[in-house]
């Protein structure tokens, strides 16, 4: 931790970054994002298992964009998110200074996104077999039972859009739900509007979601959105062999095709 603090302070002192996004402990003990602009604030810095939030989301925030150089403490999911954002041309070169702490508690400052790419390749996140098991359980049910399950889950959605707000990949300045000519998604949070919203979001995240499962963590209604993201991610991997957040170049499954993609469902 001391090493990390020193590093952040050093970056700030030498004006290599004008703001550093990290974590700190809030008044109530909850770990929350911290935005350090001066070296003497860095003592508040916190890094540990409780520091869950994917900080990559702040890269889009207009207030953060005002700073000329931004430093960010990234856990493995934030690294994947940043890499995917870079691939999608959402991050300017030489704008971000990305810092991570590896499993041996060593502080790493990445020189460029190629380094991040190789770091991610070496630090594969283990497939969460629990999630896959939940998905398989759901798939083994009859369609009607699955429908009942999701109607119950999604009906409770209050459309606070916390899932969208926390998502590093949801960076559109105007989201589909905010477009009303035509009104694609019902605004009210009745079940129809909720289904439309979540289906639309999943389709727009297909092969872009880096599966940090933040949406599931922050949902006030505890809707298991991670099941949807995990499902769509594993589909993408199985069908097209593509995983988001692994490469510096954009490899977007729905933006490309193979002539021999399977089509046994087409008549």
């Amino acid at each position: 931790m001391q090493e990390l603090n020193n590093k952040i302070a050093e970056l700030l002192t030498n004006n290599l970054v004008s703001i550093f996004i990290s974590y700190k402990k809030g008044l109530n003990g909850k770990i929350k994002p911290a935005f350090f602009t001066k070296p003497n604030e860095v003592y508040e810095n916190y890094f540990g298992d409780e520091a869950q939030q994917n900080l990559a989301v702040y890269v889009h925030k207009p207030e953060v964009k005002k700073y000329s150089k931004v430093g960010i403490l990234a856990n493995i999911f934030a690294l994947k998110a940043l890499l995917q954002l870079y691939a999608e041309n959402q991050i300017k070169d030489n704008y971000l200074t990305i810092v991570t702490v590896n499993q041996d508690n060593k502080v790493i400052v990445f020189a460029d996104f190629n380094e991040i790419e190789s770091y991610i390749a070496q630090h594969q996140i283990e497939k969460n077999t629990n999630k896959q098991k939940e998905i398989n359980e759901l798939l083994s049910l009859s369609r009607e039972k699955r429908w009942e399950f999701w109607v119950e889950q999604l009906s409770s959605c209050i459309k606070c859009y916390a899932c969208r707000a926390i998502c590093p990949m949801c960076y559109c300045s105007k989201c589909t739900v905010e477009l009303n000519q035509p009104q694609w998604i019902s605004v009210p949070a009745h079940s129809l509007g909720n289904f439309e919203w979540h289906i639309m979001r999943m389709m727009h995240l297909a092969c872009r979601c880096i599966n940090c499962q933040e949406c599931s963590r922050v949902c006030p209604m505890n809707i298991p959105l991670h099941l949807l993201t995990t499902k769509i991610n594993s589909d993408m991997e199985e069908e097209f062999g593509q995983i988001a957040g692994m490469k510096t170049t954009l490899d977007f499954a729905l933006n490309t095709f193979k002539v021999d993609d399977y089509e046994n469902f087409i008549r």
Partner: protein
Amino acid sequence: MKILSGKIMNYKTLKIDNLDLFFNEIKKSGKNLLVPKKKGKTTYFSSFININDVEFNYIQTTISPKSALFPKVEELISFKKDDGTYVVTEPSIEKETIVFGLRPCDAVGLEYLSNFFLNEKSDFTVRLRKENTTLITLACKNFDENCFCTSVGLSPASIKGSDICLTDIGNGLFYAEIITDKGEKLIAEHSALFSNAEKINKESYVAQVPLKFDSDNLIKNIKNYYNSEKWTINSLPCLGCGACAFVCPTCTCFNIEDEANPVCGTRLRCWDSCAFGIFTLHASGHNPRPIQSNRWRHRVLHKFGYSVTNMDTLSCVGCGRCIRVCPAGMNIIEQILDLQEA
């Protein structure tokens, strides 16, 4: 700003073991009974089915009981096309509702909410719901670091806004304070379950929530805080979702949307949040509150400043829900302390 007043009409006791019976009797009488239920980390209010689903172990429900008066989506009017013109009908709210297990702060929150909706141009759906809703409050035995009811002039023993207030006084007994006619009526309908009791001092049975900030000082100085730099710094984590507003018992903002097919449709009212960027966006593209710190400031100042001017009361009841639910760890207490410090 003490708002603990309220006249208690009667005192009773209820055996905790009889709660099941009480609930079932209410259910049998055809009324809608909302009780706290748990789903993962979320506690929310839902219709009573079975005593085993009812959750008692919670500091505060994740979602406030405001939907009893102000549901997340409700119909304002419905219309049908008829020979070139429209037939417009109003919805009816038939069912009597009883909410069990809300906290004393929630009852005050719902009172604020209904006062707000019923002042001047009275809102008919809220009024009908209010008339048909009985609130059975459960005084808090526990609290957490996000509770701050005492800082806004309330306490776990407040009875304001409640119809009946239950306090667990040990020995398997609830001490019931019956505050309103509605509460009296409900008790009368189930009188066999309640025994008469003397007035007792509840203080020793309820949680002692420590003071987090001085609200009198805050109200006095709130006008000076508008231009504080703290808004920008403190709102940096805010991501502009509506979670805080949607779980808040006193957030009243809403949106009106039409849903229709070519034949008929409804005009629906749904919750909206001042944290959303498009909340204030003009059709011209001009946005009066263009950045998140403006929106965060508006929310905090509304709770502690604007509603004091407009309604002579704070519109924050210290339930701490917005703090617990915030995806980015925003904390209204921290903001207030920072403002007061400066």
